[in-house]
């Protein structure tokens, strides 16, 4: 470890101050993270590819750059989810079908922060095509949760979340279609935000479900989240669905919640929330009141229909979005086919994993002639109702809060055989994607030895209100625990293997 830096605790805000004040060289900072990757990556597997040489070289170049010409995020080591295309760096989307894909351009969000001189450490692991809630659907093997290596980090941005939690990256970019930033952030004890639909350009984000996908930050703190979001947000002429934010993202400083009304949707907490998660959630509600906020029960009556609607709309869009992976122009092509149809079938049959195929089939079916109205049409009507639920609720409250995930990190392999159980992981996160609204998950403590996430949801373009409230609450929660890299499958007394004691603050050295 360099100069006493602790990658498990360092924030981007502090790192930036150290770099700006000349107390730390970018090359030292990057080395800190590359060393940590060296130390823990074989157990965590947060990355599909670590671009160590490029990162070290680039950090050295930043050190030679005069302060005045350095970008706003110069030298800050960053992990990028592997569904954002990066020119010259293989981008797989967690899939065999893009296993060798060399992008010919760079995603707008990435290009923006490259322009700010961030240092890219590598491409983070993910569920194939962002389809999943555990990162077990990656064609390149699962990521392990650094809080307990026998559990999943959540997904689909599990690599990004685990990298930040494990100190393998200062922060990361992920993408959120139904909770894919917030749920892994919750399970890994970090901050994760899904901005308002359209706030961040999707150009260069390999599409899963175009009307739901948004890129968002995974960071250690809410302040860092705002710092990264403000650099990636904004209109992009290459993405027709992107919009200019009404105002710049502000760096939050609030400590109180006076005057803010928080709605607790009865439908979210009615059932299926683990007791440990519920306890942390309720504890956090008391903190809200202590900070001067008001909590009221509200109703989002169509919540039960959100999950089924999502599992029609997202697969329907995916079935078209993934049709371009046909073996004709780039990526994997199966060998030995005799004609075009055979080539398509073999390439897609061998190139896609089981969950991706399942969703392509669901989506294709939902769009088929004769079924369209009953499935896709009906799901779109539900989507409108879900959106109206939020409109009605936000006439009464400023923000809505819920647990991010009904459970803490679950064991690797425990849900892979049951897709419906896996889909339940996103029950609290999906509705805002359907409504296009912003939401943030912050750690609110541990249940047992595993982190719990607290979700705040806001009206469209209320990013500043959300970040401000989350910042105040974060201060009150005072979450300081760090992961132990234990493995609850090991004997409790094995070195580094004790997951038994909650709130353990051991730092693996």
């Amino acid at each position, binding site marked *: 470890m360099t100069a006493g830096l602790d990658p498990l605790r360092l924030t981007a805000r502090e790192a930036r101050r150290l770099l700006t004040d000349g107390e730390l060289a970018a090359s030292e900072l990057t080395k800190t993270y590359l060393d940590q990757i060296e130390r823990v990556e074989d157990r965590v597997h947060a990355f599909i590819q670590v671009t160590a040489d490029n990162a070290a070289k680039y950090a050295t170049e930043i050190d030679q750059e005069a302060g005045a010409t350095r970008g706003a995020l110069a030298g800050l080591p960053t992990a990028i989810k592997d*569904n*954002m*295309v990066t020119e010259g760096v293989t*981008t797989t*989307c967690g899939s065999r079908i*893009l296993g060798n*894909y060399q*992008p*010919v*351009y760079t*995603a707008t969000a990435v290009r923006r922060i490259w322009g700010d001189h961030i240092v890219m450490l590598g491409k983070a692991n993910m569920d194939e095509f962002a389809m999943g809630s555990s990162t077990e659907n990656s064609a390149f093997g699962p990521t392990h949760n650094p809080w307990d290596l026998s559990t999943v980090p959540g997904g689909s941005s599990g690599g990004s979340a685990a990298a930040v939690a494990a100190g393998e990256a200062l922060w990361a970019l992920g993408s959120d279609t139904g909770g894919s930033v917030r749920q892994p952030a919750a399970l890994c004890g970090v901050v994760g935000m899904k901005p308002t639909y359209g706030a961040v350009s*999707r*150009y*260069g*984000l*390999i*599409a899963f*479900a*175009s*009307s739901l996908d948004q890129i968002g930050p995974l960071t250690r703190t809410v302040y860092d989240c705002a710092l990264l979001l403000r650099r990636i947000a904004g209109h992009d*002429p*290459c*993405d*027709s*669905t992107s919009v200019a934010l009404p105002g710049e993202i502000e760096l939050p400083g609030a400590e109180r919640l006076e005057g803010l009304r928080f709605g607790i949707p009865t439908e979210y907490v009615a059932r299926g929330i683990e007791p440990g998660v519920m306890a942390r959630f309720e504890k956090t509600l008391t903190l809200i009141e202590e900070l001067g906020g008001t909590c009221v029960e509200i109703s989002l009556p169509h919540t039960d229909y959100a999950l089924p609607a999502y599992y029609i709309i997202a697969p*329907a*869009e995916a*079935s*078209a979005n993934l*049709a*371009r*992976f*046909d073996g*004709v*122009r*780039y990526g994997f092509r199966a060998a030995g086919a005799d004609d*075009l149809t055979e080539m*398509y079938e073999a390439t897609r049959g061998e190139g896609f994993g089981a969950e991706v195929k399942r969703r392509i089939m669901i989506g*294709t079916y939902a*769009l*088929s*002639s004769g079924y*369209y109205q009953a499935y*896709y049409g009906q799901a779109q009507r539900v989507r409108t109702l879900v959106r109206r639920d939020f409109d009605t609720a936000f006439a009464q409250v400023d923000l809505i809060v819920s647990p991010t995930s009904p459970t803490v990190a679950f064991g690797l392999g425990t849900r892979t055989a049951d897709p419906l159980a896996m889909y339940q992981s996103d029950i609290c996160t999906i509705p805002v994607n359907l409504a296009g609204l912003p939401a943030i998950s912050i750690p609110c403590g541990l249940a047992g030895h595993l982190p719990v996430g607290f979700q705040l949801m806001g009206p469209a373009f209320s990013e500043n209100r959300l970040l401000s409230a989350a910042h105040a609450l974060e201060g009150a929660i005072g979450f300081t625990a760090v992961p132990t890299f234990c493995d609850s499958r090991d004997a409790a007394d094995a070195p580094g293997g004790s997951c038994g004691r909650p709130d353990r603050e051991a730092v693996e050295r």
Partner: protein
Amino acid sequence: MSAWEPVIGLEVHVELDTATKMFCGCPVTKGDPPNTHTCPVCLAHPGALPVVNERAIEYAARIALALGCEVRPRSIFHRKNYFYPDLPKAYQISQYDEPLAVAGSFDYWVGDEKLSCRINRVHMEEDAAKLIHAGGEAGRIAGSEYSMVDFNRGGTPLIEIVGEPDIPSPEAAREFLQQLRDLVIGLGVSECNMEEGQIRWDANISVRPAGSDRLGTRTELKNMNSFRFLQQALESEVPRQVAVLEAGGAIEQETLHFDPETGVTTPLRSKEEAHDYRYFPEPDLVPVTADAAWIERVRQSLPELPAARVERFTSQYGLSRYDAAVLGGGAALAGFYEELVAQGIEPKLAANWVMGEYSAHLHSAGLEPGHGHVTAARLAALLRLVAAGEVSGTAAKQAFALMVEERAEPLDVVARHDLGQVSDTGELAAVVAAVLAAHPAQVEQFRAGKEQVAGFFVGQVMKVTQGKANPQLAAELVRAALRGGDAAPTDAGAPA
């Protein structure tokens, strides 16, 4: 046969001549090396997103407004899903049930009869890439060894004009298409080059008892780009359907292939194999909005449309309806004609020449009106000589041919080839005298009262002068000489 009437509908695709493609910034080009105008968007690389070409929307709106359509304030794009190597996204972005424009009509002429065809809709989409099948016979996929894709064309803006089944005959279908092509070219939105496939169409056809208002089962002819083959195909399909129905059979709804060599249509695929395109709204694009002010601006920018121009040509230039339709139907030919008139050529003379010599020249040289050596200025220079009586009509035609052949100026040609009309009295009088001297028998006939013999002598004068004699002057001199006038100074040889 007279108991049945054909019902024909056309769906016409037109590639727009925008600078760039429908959803990306790649240039729209013709004839460049394959795959030199591509980008992540038109190659459907992962993560790439479409952005609508505003100029293409404007061009489509021009066509829609010229067809009297209502341009809808909000229209959306859909995805039309199918796998094929010429479609890199495996879906075509196209408009479906909320198109750009609806409910128009197109007036066209078949001979002197004005017909009208309702236009169901005008919508926007993107063209597919071009497939090249190698190693087989004549570029066909059957028997080829491998296929290559040229993505230069992929993503070219395309509009589809969907006509209602209002066309009453194969000939009318051909006229509809030719006149629609003229309209589109005149709007400046596409050159509609036939060989490049910039305009192509699907035809559907059915027959029904004459006077019935019910539609019969239709067959379709897809992706055609020859007016002649279309007419031939329809002319062979109508009696086929009639024969089937008169024999008590039923028409299968199917797609037909027309073989121009045999003149026979054969089934291509039946509806059982029809695709399920799984249309759904394109989530990567926002709706296209067209406010009233924008629509009005586009409407104001439309040039004069052919129908209005034909009306104007009859009233302004006193042309017959037929001449006006020939000259005014296409913007280019109309423009050429009006340039001649603007240069002071009398409208009827100009009309005769444009429809005659000039059109024949365009046809044989394969030129579009206004192109090639014969500019309006050159033709006007020649016609001014005709109008002034300095060159006879016959000589002018020679001069025209020589002007084309030698790529020369009309005045030079006339001078060099001595095509000027002889209006010099002395010169012509000598010729007249010689002609009279050579034909004493005919002179006698005239003098015996058979005055029509004069025409013979005028003809002889024209022959001797190779058509250059001013015919009126020649006639005057001939009559004077025959009447024994003093206009025949070399009359000496004539018998007393």
